[in-house]
């Protein structure tokens, strides 16, 4: 019981007595301790300022999901087409379903078991960018997506995840593209681009330095790129390489100033296991969003490839473009991502 407490209990008005020596030393030690801790803490957290703090390793980031060895028999680029209708056949629809075309194309590549191993977590990355319905051909055809999921499961995948970072409201894009329903029906896990799934990563590309990345798309054993081939007013044509815009969060609008380099950066970052390009219905103009069904044309075609550059080089011919008009293809070729001369690959038409 200190003298202070005692005096308080007695209720005396003024107390001039000194504290005991023990109490005085205790108080001094307490003050010095707090001061010392504050000084030590401030020293540890001392920020000397300046702009050179954030510089880190300048290593280009790559997510490589490719299969290391490919045998020489199977195709490197497979084009599956629905057979033309016989003369006088006015029935609506095509002579093959999208699923049949996907199966034929992947079979020509050696079958899905060449790409997906038992127990793999497979990410299927379609284009679900826009609030458009399948007839507008702005998003990947849901039947094509469902067929790829089925093939992956047949090859023994543990889990197939479908995800994309949409441009319009994601809920609306996923539902109205028909992909949510189709993918769910065949047992895939559909992941919407919710905020907490993005992590900032340093890509170290030429224009893409630090960006929020949709982690669901990169946390996988195998990644299958399932783009749709369509017109794009700025890039002129978009399919496999530009489909990786979907892994980016943040304000990706500023990438358009240098759209070709950013596409090449992204395609350098993401090296998929397989590309299955949907050309069932192709948007010929007013891309990438379309909106008028007259802008799209039925082509009833699916292209599979292990080479993103070749897939795009072939795909752009569908809307009447030439690979040499698309600078990002040349950049990709220069960076060793693939070849723009798709004819030089083992091409199989099925």
């Amino acid at each position, binding site marked *: 019981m200190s003298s202070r407490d005692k005096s308080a209990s007695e209720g005396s008005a003024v107390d001039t007595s000194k504290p005991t020596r023990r109490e005085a030393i205790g108080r001094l030690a307490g003050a010095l301790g707090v001061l010392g801790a504050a000084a030590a803490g401030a020293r540890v957290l001392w920020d000397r300022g300046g702009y050179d703090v954030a510089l880190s390793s300048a290593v280009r980031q790559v997510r490589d999901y490719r299969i290391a060895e490919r045998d020489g028999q199977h195709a490197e680029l497979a084009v599956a087409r629905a057979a033309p209708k016989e003369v006088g056949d006015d029935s609506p629809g095509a002579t093959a379903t999208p699923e049949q075309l996907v199966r034929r194309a992947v079979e020509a590549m050696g079958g899905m078991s060449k790409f997906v191993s038992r127990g793999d977590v497979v990410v299927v990355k379609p284009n679900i960018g826009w609030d458009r319905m399948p007839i507008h051909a702005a998003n990947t055809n849901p039947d094509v997506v469902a067929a790829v999921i089925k093939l992956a499961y047949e090859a023994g995948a543990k889990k197939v995840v479908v995800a994309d970072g949409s441009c319009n409201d994601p809920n609306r894009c996923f539902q109205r593209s028909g992909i949510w329903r189709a993918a769910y029906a065949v047992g895939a896990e559909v992941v*919407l681009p919710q905020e907490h799934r993005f992590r900032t990563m340093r890509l170290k590309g030429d224009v893409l330095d630090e960006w929020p990345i949709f982690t669901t798309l990169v946390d996988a054993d195998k990644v299958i790129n399932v783009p749709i081939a369509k017109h794009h007013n*700025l890039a002129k044509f978009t399919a496999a390489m530009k489909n990786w815009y979907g892994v980016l969060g943040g304000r990706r609008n500023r990438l358009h100033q240098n759209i070709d380099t950013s596409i090449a950066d992204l395609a350098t970052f993401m090296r998929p296991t397989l590309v299955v390009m949907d050309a069932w219905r192709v948007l010929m103009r007013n891309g990438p969003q379309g909106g008028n069904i007259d802008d799209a044309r039925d082509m009833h075609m699916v292209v599979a490839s292990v080479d993103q550059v070749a897939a795009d080089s072939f795909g752009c011919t569908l809307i009447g473009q030439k690979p040499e008009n698309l600078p990002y293809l040349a950049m990709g070729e220069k960076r060793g991502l693939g070849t723009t001369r798709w004819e030089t690959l083992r091409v199989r038409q099925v």
Partner: protein
Amino acid sequence: MTQPHGHQHAGVSLARDVRALGPPETHVEVEPIPWKTGRVGMVAALDRPTGGGGPNLVTGASPAAVAPAPAGAAAAAATSAAAASAPSKRGSRLSGSGIPPRQIAVILKWARRVCQVGFLALFLYFLFQTGFRGSFAARADAPVRLPLPVEAFLLADPFVGAMTVLSTHTVYRGLLWSVGLLALTMVFGRVFCGWICPFGTLHHFFGWLLPSKQGRGAARVEANKTHTYQRAKYYLLYAFLVAGVAGSAIGGLFDPICIAVRSIGLGVIPGLQYLSHRALGAAQDVHSRAVQGVADQTQDFLAQTVWQSKQFYFHQTWFIVFLLVAVLFANRFIPRFWCRVLCPLGAFLGVFSRFALFGMTKDHAKCTDCNLCLVHCQGADSPQGGVKWRQDECHMCMNCENACPEDVIKFTFLPNRRSTVLVPDTQRRTALAAMGAGAMFLPTARVADALDVNYHPKVIRPPGAVEERAFLERCIRCAECMKVCPNNALHPAFFEAGVEGLWTPILIARIGYCEYSCVLCGQVCPTGAIQKITEKEKMGQGQAPIKIGTAFYDHGRCLPWSMQTPCIVCEEFCPTSPKAIWVEEVDATVRESTPGPDGAPPAYKTVHLQRPHVDPSLCIGCGACEKVCPVQDQPAVYITSVGETRSKTNVILLENTNYNQRT
């Protein structure tokens, strides 16, 4: 220690002093309670507006009294003495005579609690569901609608119904349900306030949670007596209804359901989402798989059930939240301050509760003035003996009957009304003055600026909104449209739309654009300020599309126009077909940034560019271009309200100025 003890501690409360003096003298006979006339249910000359309590015998305070209130101390002392001698059914927990409440009253009290929790939960669930979450089961061509009537509480709100009836002379669609709530009030009085209202339940909860030490006991009894300041809500109601007649639904600012949706939907939920994103995001960085997994799954769950699809921000919403916090904090001083003093919906129901078939009878003769009823009273409606019960203030919470140990209070159907005041205790002159203020509000607000040329070119109303005057007649600022908007495009206006347009929805395209195929704001609008349009009407299939404004380019800031840099993200996002933004292919000269060799002037080169233009006859003003423009701080393309379909005057193109043309 020269002074005597008592002087030294003058601040110590009297009660403690009293206790220090030792046990009180036993009171066998209390001061006679004047209304104990023996005539059951009668009040003779005692129609005082507020409960005065018994004679204030401080020295009679007993430590055993449940309510340590000086005001009720005498009675409490007497009743506790009685309780000690008389055998009580439920032991010493009950004070006074210890007569337990009727079983039906206990049941009703618990039913009320269940109702309150249930309706608050339902309200919050509807609020969480006020937003399109998509479905794996829906077909691609299924129209996007909310599966639940998330605006149901507003549709059942007769104050909203009455206000819009007065301003528009119609009952808009689902607002017909508000007649149901009126019918409920005609039978049971203000049960809505005590049993249903989610905002009232919040106040009930905070009134229970918050009182300070000074807000308990005697102070609480005093606070729960009927006060004249409770008239304020009636004056507010009259002012708002007259403002409605004049043509403004400004009363929505004070509607409790509107406040609840607005402040929780625009403030509390986004704020908690921000907090949770930060906290769980930090948890995801912890190097422990278990912590990461739990954090991840929690985020998934919350994202799919509670949160908006992304972090939403609402223009100047701090003020909305500040008012919510202020009015909740007021419970610390006056329990249910909002419900008793300000709520115009409560006042509206209070006016109609005079017709209620259900009500209270009091047996004044039995009242011992213990004030336990007042301790628990929600509405401050004078449940205690000796004064008349105020039916228009009562929330029908049944607490008083449950608290009463003397069998004074009974709620029954068709009670005698001898000790009941049915009508609000308002003063005619003040009421007339309030009505006058309500009538003057609109002209005052309207002459402050010219409505026809718009207060601000950025007052862009949601698609399907009616013409501005009709809009202000209908918009109750409930913020349902802002909550449901998938892109965070709609915001509560601060003073952009004038003082009259406070918290009405405006579109801020820089934060979010109007989603092309979305008609959800009209679906949830309870009053038809935004009409329930279809996708076909909005996008203009087979008819003219609904325009909310027009886009303009600022060539000085546009990359292809002034900086010879390719861009056209605006064109890419333009949703109309054909696109309202078209590009002109040009070869432009641009100077190199670096000087030539040997200090030569920088070389010039030619770049191929696409320069965007707007076709004003195709532009719908959705603002997607403004949203995505990469010129971050002040966009190079922006929308203003000119050309909006709803206005016959706010037009640019001659072809749209034909007044006879159906737009």
